[in-house]
């Protein structure tokens, strides 16, 4: 399936839900926040958020800043 993740169009094997994407990317879901198609997905909902071809996903975290 095709997803745009952090602005980059990528081809993934079929993913059941957002939790599967987080795992595929090797991320720790407790340390990130995610938007799907400009809507924030609460961390508790990753496992029940289905993904569709063409979804635009933003995955962010805290970094150093002033």
């Amino acid at each position, binding site marked *: 399936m095709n997803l745009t*993740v*952090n*602005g*980059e169009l990528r081809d993934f094997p079929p993913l059941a839900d957002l939790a599967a994407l987080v795992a595929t*990317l*090797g*991320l720790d879901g407790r*340390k*990130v*926040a*995610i*938007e799907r198609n*400009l809507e*924030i997905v*609460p*961390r508790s909902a990753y496992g029940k958020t289905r993904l569709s071809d063409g979804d635009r996903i*933003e*995955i*962010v*975290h*805290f*970094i*150093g*800043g*002033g």
Partner: protein
Amino acid sequence: MDGSVHTEDTWSVAGRIFRSRLIIGTGKYKDYAQNAAAAEAAGAEIVTVALRRVNLSDPSQPMLVDHVKPDRFTFLPNTAGCFTGEDAVRTLRLAREAGGWDLVKLEVLSNTKHLLPDMEETLRALKLLIADGFQVMVYCSDDPVYAKKLEDAGAAAIMPAGAPIGSGRGIQNLLNLGLIVEQSSVPVLVDAGVGTASDAVLAMELGCDAVLMNTAIAEARDPIRMAVAMKHAVIAGREAFLAGRMPRRMYGDPSSPTAGLI
């Protein structure tokens, strides 16, 4: 007198009480370990943080939260890089989801060269954020008129720039800063422009509630030592403010008695 501080001198913002009056940034350090050491050396209780895309090509990169821990410091997410109210709201909604915090730092810049705030857009963004339930500490220009508008709109703290972010030029308009301190009933913090310890002392002597800085520590030759210096500077300035300075005189006034001279 034993030299100790007899009543605990705290300040509060959005209902949270803090002892340290030094907030430090987490940008520009050599690495997160040095950053964490500087935060400890500064005695900081609050650190500012930015929100950015995760680097998907290397998910094993060091992460801020593994070094500067959110259970040790209050994270103050910022909106650095945002130029519109909508960008700021989007960024801070994500920050709230990532960390669960509603205390945030709003900065809406006007220009990538001097990094001074766009006050019209900052005020608009503030209203959007307050409507969304955030407690907002606002980076702003040193203009008392706009500072009052921010306070009237519900800002949790007013944070005027002493000088452009990262410039290290110190407080450029002490008169305006004094007017802002005098008129405000929410905390006032100098945010941006501090270059060395004396700048922080001046801000505190003027009656600011706290000082926020990043580059002054991160770009010092020895950041940890500068963090210690800033900790003392903020305490010294605060104590001097509370003590109340002597009057300025035109002429000398001898400290030794003039009577009984041989």
